[in-house]
Each structure stands twice: as C-alpha cells, then as structure tokens.
C-alpha cells in the first residue's frame, strides 16, 4: 500500500509540473488586443505574427484598427484599467506615453532590444523607418522635386497637406523652418515660410483622396511618408515620389509599445518578438517599403534602394526635436488652422 502511495506521489511530482508547463503555453480563451494601422501593415502583422501566435498558443489576436490618435486616446483613457495590450505609436508619442506611465519601458536585456539598431528604442521598441518626402504628379512636375519647388509660383494652389496634427505636418514645419534658415525651434520663421504655400489645395486624410486629386491634375505635390506612397505607386503610374536632398527627408519612425498593466503581458511580448523579428521586418521592407530596425535583416540590393535601412542613412535624414514639437502641438494646431488653412 505504502509502495503504491509513494509511486502515485512520485508520478504526481512528475506529471504536475509537466501539466503546469503545458498550461503556461496554453492560452486558449485568451485574447491579445493589438492597436495598429489598417491596410498592408495589418495584413503583414496578421500573416507573420498573429496567425503563428494563434497556432502556437491557442489564443486569439484581435486587431483594433485606426489612427494613432485613436490609440493614444484609448490607452490614456484606460490608464487604470487597460484593455489594449500592444499599441503601435509614432516616434514622438512613444516617449510621451512612457513618461506618463502608459507604456512599459523597452527591456534592454531582451533579445529583441539588442537586435534593434542602437539608440532607436526611444520610449518603446523601434518598429520601422520611413521618411517624409514629396509625392508629385509627374505630368505637372517634370523632375523629382526638392522641398523649395513646392513654393514655386507655378504650383501655387496645387499643394496638398495631411491633416494636422500629424507626422507629415510636423515634418513640413521642420522643413519650412530649415528653408527659412532656422529650425523647428523658431516656429515664427516656419509659419511665415508656410504662408507661401497658400492657398492649400486640400487637406487629405487618406492616400486615395489625394491621389485622385493628383490624377486629375488638381494637386501637383504633397508631403508624404515614403512607405505608404511607394507601395501605392504601382496603381498610379503618373505619380512619383521624391526624397529631397536640401534638406533631406524627415525621419519618421513607427514604434511598438507594450501597454503597462495590460491583461496579456506574455502574449504581448510574444507578439513584439515576432513583429520585430527578421521575417516580419524583411516583409515590411520588401512589400511595403518600411525600413527595418532589426540589424539582423539582410535586404536585397533592389529592396534596400527604396527603404531606409541603416543607421548611416538615418543620420542623413532630418531629425526633429520631437519632445519640443509635442509640447508645441496645441499652439501649432491653432496656427496651422489659422495661418496656413485660413480657417
């Protein structure tokens, strides 16, 4: 009897931890909530990240699609009781969210942190690299334009801008300031220069809108972020994209943030590891022209030509003082509406 009992106990000591280990990997019934932009980004994250996680863990991954403003509003409003686990933010929002205690600081000991180029994990994990350049109608603007060309009287009334506040608008303020011999710390110089773009042809909220206006010849140029435009160009043969040189394109970096005290921290970490991994970042670069932040990604020469994929290239781009820009946003929004859009 004693022998039977001890055998049963021994079996129990072996089986229980094994069952425990199994339970730790089994996330059936769990849902990971990820806030991200829609379109090709969502498609790649679904194929390369969400589906493998669902297969491996039994959990389900729910994407909440929208702009960064929606996500920021949600994670701030839910600060004490978050329901979103992973949020993709812009490079200027990530440090703010970290200092407000909304997201977790990136873990310098983690493999994914170490794989990313030094100095890029600012606030959250750096996800992809793109630059603000100029999309233009090739029939109206014969050569790839420089920034100053947007001020050419020939194109007066034919410049479109994205809605402000946003990366594109902040970048344009930074460029205008530099063309006026200053930088973003002198907003008066920037806004005075911006006056020269009036009247603005349109304020766009999505690429389809502005491309339709470009196709009919009512918009000649618009400052745009490289990745989205380059991947959409194949459907618009008359539209080109220019990376200006004086000054260069403005660096824009997407960040992957793990929300503090979120319901599924382990699944969120798994998601981050796969999203920042070589396979997904390679697809990001090759399919949608978003430059990788993972130093282990090796791109073909052809793919490398269209994306920003090295720290040296990053150095050549205009980098704004984002904490300062964020501080000024409220005032600049008013000035943008009033002085540029003449509202």
């Amino acid at each position, binding site marked *: 009897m004693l022998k039977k009992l001890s055998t049963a106990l021994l079996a129990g000591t072996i089986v229980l931890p094994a069952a425990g280990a199994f339970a730790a990997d089994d996330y059936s019934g769990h849902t990971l909530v990820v806030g991200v932009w829609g379109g090709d980004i969502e498609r790649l994250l679904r194929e390369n990240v969400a589906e493998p996680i669902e297969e491996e863990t039994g959990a389900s991954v729910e994407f909440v699609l929208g702009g960064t*403003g929606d996500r920021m509003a949600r994670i701030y409003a839910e*600060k004490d009781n978050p329901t979103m686990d992973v949020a993709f933010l812009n490079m200027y929002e990530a440090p703010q969210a970290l200092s407000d205690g909304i997201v977790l600081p990136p873990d310098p000991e983690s493999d994914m942190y170490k794989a990313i180029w030094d100095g890029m994990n600012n606030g959250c994990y750096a996800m992809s690299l793109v630059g603000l350049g100029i999309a233009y109608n090739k029939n109206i603007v014969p050569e790839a334009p420089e920034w100053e060309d947007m001020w050419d009287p020939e194109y007066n009334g034919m410049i479109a801008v994205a*809605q*402000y506040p*946003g990366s594109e608008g902040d970048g344009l303020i930074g460029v205008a300031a530099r063309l006026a011999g200053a930088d973003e710390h002198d907003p008066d110089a920037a806004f005075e220069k911006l006056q020269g773009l009036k009247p603005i042809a*349109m304020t766009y909220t999505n690429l389809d809108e502005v491309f339709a206006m470009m196709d009919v010849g009512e918009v000649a140029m618009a400052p745009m972020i490289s990745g989205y435009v380059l991947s959409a160009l194949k459907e618009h043969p008359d539209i080109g994209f220019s990376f200006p040189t004086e000054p260069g394109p403005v660096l824009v970096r997407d960040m992957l943030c793990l929300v503090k005290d979120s319901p599924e921290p382990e699944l969120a970490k798994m998601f981050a590891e796969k999203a920042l991994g070589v396979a997904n970042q390679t697809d990001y670069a090759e399919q949608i022209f978003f430059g990788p932040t993972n130093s282990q990604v090796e791109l073909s020469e052809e793919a490398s030509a269209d994306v920003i994929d090295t720290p040296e290239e990053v150095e050549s781009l205009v980098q704004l003082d984002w904490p300062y820009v964020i501080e000024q946003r409220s005032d600049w929004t*008013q000035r943008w*509406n009033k002085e540029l859009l003449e*509202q």
Partner: protein
Amino acid sequence: MNKRALMLLMPALILSGIVFLLPFLWLFVTSFRVQGEGSLLMAEGFSAANYARLVSDSYFAEVFFRTIWMSAAATLISLVIALPMARQIAVSAGRAKGLLLALILVPLVSGALLPTLGMLHLLGPLGVVNSILKDLGLITRSVKFLGTAPGVIIGLVQAFLPLMLLPLVNALSRLPKDVEAAAETLGAPTLIVWRRVILPLIAPGIIAGSVLVFCASLTSFVTPQILGQGKIATFGTMAYQQASLVLDWPFASTVAVVMLAILGLGLAIGSLAAKRLARRPA
C-alpha cells in the same frame, strides 16, 4: 405626479441620470482641468484657463460664428426645399404618402457617415455633378465643392432635410383643407394664400423643424469633417481635433460645453417662440 407613477418612472430616471447626466457633469468638470506640464495627463486642481483661451483668441470666435451661420444657412435652405416637398406628401393619399414618408426616413436611419460618403462622390472633382457640368460644356475645370463652406452646407442640408420634413408634413396634414379653399374663393392668389394662411398655421411645425435642423447642424461632426476636407473648422471638427489629435481633452471639453450651451440657447428660443405662437389668438 403620484408616488406610484414616480416609482414606475424611477428605473428610467436613474438610467437617464447615469447615461446622460453624469457624462455631461463629467464633461463640465473636465472643462475646468488642465494638462500637466510636459504631460498629456490632466494635472491636479481646477482652473478657468481653457475658457480664457477660448475667449482670448479671435480664431475660436470665427469658428463659432462660422458654425452658427452655416447651421442657419442649412436650416433656411432645408426649409425652402422642405415646404413644397412636405406639401406634396401631405396632400398625397394612402400608399403614396406612406412610401414618400418611408423614403424620407431612409437617410435618417442610415446614419450620417454613409450619405456623407455618397456626397463625397457626388460633389468630388471627379464626381457626378462635375462630370455632368463638364459633359454639358458648362465648365472645363472642376468646381470646388469639397473643402468649401457651400459644399459643407449642401451636405448638412442633405443630411438633415428629413428633420425639417417630418414636422412640416405633420403640420400640413393637420391643416383644415377648407381654409385654403376659403382664401382662394375670396380671390387670394397662391402666394398670398401661402403667406397669410398656410405659413402662419404651420408655424409651430416650421419652428420645430428649424430647431431640429439648426441644432443637428451645429453639433454635426461627420459632414464638416469629410466634406470640409479639414479646411472648414466648426465646433464639431474643432472638438475632435483637440480631443483625438492634440489629445487636449480638457480644452476639447470646454469647446463641447460652450457648444452645448449654445445648443441649449437655441432650444430655449425655439421653445419660447412655440409657446408665444400657441398663446396667440387665432
């Protein structure tokens, strides 16, 4: 009201309190908060700084007046379009009336977004209106509707016309048919019959419809945002910009509180006018 009736009403009153009054109260309190230095979170304490900002910059006054005149224009145009339509529906009989009323209700139940997106294709540079004008040889370059005040007003009229039509159909249906006939028998031309007989009698319907269209236009967000293309700032788009893009919720709350106050004022004026009309001897 007796106690029993009050008891029966309690669940609805409590629900209304939680769903409607508490958020309003919260909005009002938030409008007196400010963001912390270098933070997007609200700081401790209360201040009237947001209200001071709102009155100290002429930009906000311009946005307020623009919203009000655009809402007034949308109300007036809706009234002019709705009067003959409502008259036609009111004099229709049986199935035709039911069908016409159902057609009025379709835009109301489909929400603001879908009809506005439809208008985008109608009024856009490649839209139906511009294409027809180009085909007819009347224009060579697209007429700009999008991103202009007239474009937004057209959208507001399209979105809120049913709110004007329904009270007018109701008022015109109740109009005794013999008063019109009597006026005509006495030699009054059609315009005089409308001005001196029909319009005074359906005035309560006109006021109700006007208040509904004006208030809906005043608070509208989707139509000015989409058809205005970010170039026509109104209360609604300004509150959205501050809340969702700038993430300055206290200031967005202040904009919303002022908007609600103007809304309340509009409703009060409408109600006062309706009461005066009701007291007026026939």
